């Protein structure tokens, strides 16, 4: 890729934007998954203990 080419800023901006949004989506999705599964596990264990 020629970094001195015309309009190269638009190319870099496109890849940067895609990276930022896709990385954000991945982090948000994995974070929500981890948080909710831990919470479900905690409540389930708490409930089982209370019943016992």
């Amino acid at each position, binding site marked *: *890729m*020629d970094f001195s*080419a*015309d*309009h*190269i800023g*638009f*190319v870099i*901006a*496109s*890849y940067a*934007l*895609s990276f930022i*949004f*896709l990385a954000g*989506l*991945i982090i948000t*999705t*994995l974070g*929500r*998954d981890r948080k*909710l*599964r831990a*919470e*479900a596990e905690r*409540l*389930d264990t708490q*409930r089982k203990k209370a019943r016992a």
Partner: protein
Amino acid sequence: MQFLANPTRFLKIANAVLPYVWAITIALFAVGLYGALVTAPPDYQQGETVRIMYVHVPAAWMALFVYTVMALASAVAAIFRHPLADVAAKTAAPIGAVFCFLSLATGSLWGKPMWGAWWVWDARLTSMFVLMLLYIGYMAIWAAIEEPHRAAMVARVVALVGFINIPIVKFSVDWWNTLHQPASVFRADGPTIAGPMLWPLLVMGLAYSFLFLALHLTAMRAEIAARKIRQIQIAEIGER
């Protein structure tokens, strides 16, 4: 399909396949980006700007595909009462919305140097904008209606009615005289793109597809956990 109706069985399968799906996604992105940024030649007219195609086109393909998944899942939920179909539709929407936004944004970044305008109200761009609004509307329904069964019923209607926009987006470049170029990959007479430019595009398309699969399975797993939490909390209130 009924095989996956049991959330426990679905979680078992999702947990087993997810590490492999993530690994394939990373490998496909590595190969696709190498092809897009290193081996693919610049276009004789567009120059280096053509490289925007490798992030713009897969995002646009996925925006259409994800909405199709949402509509199919909504139809399955409405007809067969499949317990995970609404979960599949609901969790696909934010992922599809990001793909749709990226398609519009990177398209705009390509349009400015090539057309001399950030945006034109031609049929392809306008129908993609409508798709973005459909994604936002669909997610707003789930956010606004607290009772999940009611939210699911309204969301199904939006997903199914909005599906009419998908063939409009796809064929807009054939039905109307648009500034946006016609299809150059999925054509009856074969792709019109040269091989050295085509393979990185197809690999990037596969990378985006696997990324969607990985994110969708993860988001579905999280949504199942969220519903379990809700059930436990409701049961606790009932026990008091």
